[in-house]
């Protein structure tokens, strides 16, 4: 069992959870992920490691409540325990040698982008961050991003905070203004990463994306998370989750992500009813 030592809401739908897992805390690196199960009958859910404290033996995950599984997870309180917590899985981000990087984060993807930006900052790279949210209420980790970024741009779909528009617009402006990035690292919804790549391809700026396909085991034994990268089948859980954005077949990944849409809608409804009953 893995005790929840801290649980903090970051916005109405995004929660930060700090979990006691000393062995994982000792090994985790930016870019890696864990698989967890909230209870004894829960589904296995992959979540990226948002932070870790090797001394305290804790690992932080940040998740958005989007369906049955994350609702169940969010129903757990501080001091309670997760049934299973496995990791660190996947390959760590390759950050060595990068001098100037633009980190692009979208929505809850910012939780994954932050440790990457932080690590780059600590390695002495020049870090520009472009982060986007639907509206002001959903903004997370703004201060943390500002603290590790040489340049910080906040975007919102409706203009309720920062600038109105999508992250791609801000990124393109920066590139056009002559910022010569060694690499762009984009982490967020598949559609966002797809359009970031559409921009960077025009200017031939190397782009790394962190893929988030459906996973079961997360150790390479099932291929549920497979993607086509550079025309080849790759397993995101062992070969990734980060890949060269120019090579990824995003349309296919978007189709595969929607595989269990109906089941998930049903599970969400069920979890809602169940949790509401408990509240009453």
């Amino acid at each position, binding site marked *: 069992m893995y005790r929840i030592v801290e649980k903090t809401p970051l916005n109405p739908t995004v929660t930060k959870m700090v979990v006691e897992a000393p062995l994982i805390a000792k090994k985790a690196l930016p870019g890696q992920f864990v698989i967890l199960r909230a209870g004894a009958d829960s589904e296995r859910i992959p979540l990226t490691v948002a932070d870790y404290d090797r001394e305290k033996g804790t690992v932080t995950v940040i998740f958005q409540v989007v369906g049955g599984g994350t609702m169940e997870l969010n129903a757990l309180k501080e001091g309670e325990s997760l049934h299973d917590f496995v990791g660190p899985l996947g390959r760590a981000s390759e950050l060595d040698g990068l001098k100037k990087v633009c980190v692009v984060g979208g929505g809850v993807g910012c939780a994954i982008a932050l440790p990457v930006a932080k690590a780059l900052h600590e390695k002495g790279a020049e870090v520009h961050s472009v982060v986007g949210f639907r509206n002001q209420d959903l903004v997370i980790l703004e201060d943390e991003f500002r603290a590790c970024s040489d340049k910080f741009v906040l975007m919102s779909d409706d203009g309720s905070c920062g600038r109105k528009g999508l992250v791609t617009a801000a990124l393109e402006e920066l590139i056009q203004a002559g910022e010569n990035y060694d690499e762009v690292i984009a982490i967020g919804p598949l559609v966002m990463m797809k359009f970031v790549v559409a921009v960077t391809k025009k200017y031939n700026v190397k782009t790394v994306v962190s893929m988030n396909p459906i996973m079961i085991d997360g150790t390479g*034994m099932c291929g549920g998370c497979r993607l086509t990268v550079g025309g080849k089948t790759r397993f995101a859980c062992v070969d990734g989750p980060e890949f060269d954005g120019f090579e990824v077949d995003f349309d296919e990944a978007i189709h*595969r992500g929607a595989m*269990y849409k109906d089941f998930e809608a049903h599970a969400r409804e069920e979890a809602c009813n169940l949790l509401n009953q408990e509240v009453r």
Partner: protein
Amino acid sequence: MANMSLTKCPMPSQDPEVRSHNFDEVALGYTAEMAVEEAKRCLNCPKKPCHSGCPVGIDIPAFIGKVAEEDFAGAYEVLSQSTTLAAVCGRVCPQESQCEGKCVRGVKGEPVAIGRLERFVADWHREHAHEEPVKAAPNVHKVAVVGSGPSGLTCAGDLAKLGYAVTVFEALHTPGGVLVYGIPEFRLPKELVRKEIATLEAMGVEFQTNMVIGKVLTVDELMEDMGYECVYLASGAGLPSFMGIPGETLNGVYSANEYLTRVNLMKAYRPDSHTPIAKSKSVAVVGGGNVAMDAARCAKRLGAENVYIVYRRSMDELPARKEEVEHAEEEGIIFRLLTNPVEVLGDETGHVKGMKCIRMELGEPDASGRRRPVPVPDSEFVLDVDTMIMSIGTSPNPLIRSTTPGLETNKHGCIVTNGEDGLTSRTGVYAGGDAVTGAATVILAMGAGKQAAAAIHKYIQEK
């Protein structure tokens, strides 16, 4: 008085029409009367050829003799000298190519039903005996077992009997390996696996789940930092192969591992499961092994109307156990033999809507002696399916070999051992089961676990 019947005493089983809609065990097992009757078919040969066919070396005539005398507790005692997983092996061993394949009674008529008797004795013991498993006097030596499949469990059990402090590291959240995620409930009830594991725990074996060796801890850390004198690598062959044909990433295409993991480990067949699985009308399972049969029979039970086994050779070359093929046929699985998929077809939403296949014919025998399937020109046709399950084999996961310096592996990714006792190219590191052989059988994995336990004991004693 020997029973000279030429045929095995039949074992009751669920009616195919009923069982193809549930996940309950198909074969129901012998009653005590049936077991005694069948046991009397054993001639108690002095040379006991059956014994040589058992990879874990069970004294078969001895335990069957006890059954014939209605001393079931005594029979269990004989079994447990050689195996810790009798209830499992009696059910899933391919006895026709092991013990029963060597039985003298099989020369004229059917061999003695050794597997069914082993199963009966193990089940009888579970229901009737309540004594605690014996915990050996502990010695001071620590051994780590990586993987809790049949090979790891056997090795752990044998070492625990000798007093070793054994820790089994398992990557998934439930121990048992293929016994829990691969082989379905209707062939091997998971309650049995849980009980076998509980017995090992009572014998002092510690299980640590959620431990991906190669990620959270390396083999070197186990030995250098954590004080394990030996490591037994039994991580299996869990990496699925795909065909590399167009359309394989469409929604509705599964590896058998994924399909079976969702169904068996995550219980996706239960209406209240939190893990989803495809709702299919027509399913094609590509491959002809036991895993393909399991996947096809699961798909049928999940409500698919048409389930096809698509195999590129003919009935005679099917690698699956004969009994499993018969069960599948009885349950209405349709065999599309001498057929090979060339492309998966998708609809506008990116979901499987069909499978383009080509007919095959058997050509000259290849190096392995099997007749090679050759495509028949211009014989392409489309099979209407909405789900496709690839069951064309698995290979060892690269995690351990890529994080263990000096561990020799072959071109297939299998760990190289000295063959005799499972010693790898690293001192103190042993390996066995599918991690060494590539995908094989439960009993071979158990045999390797047994050999390695003996070798580890010898190595530590002589150190």
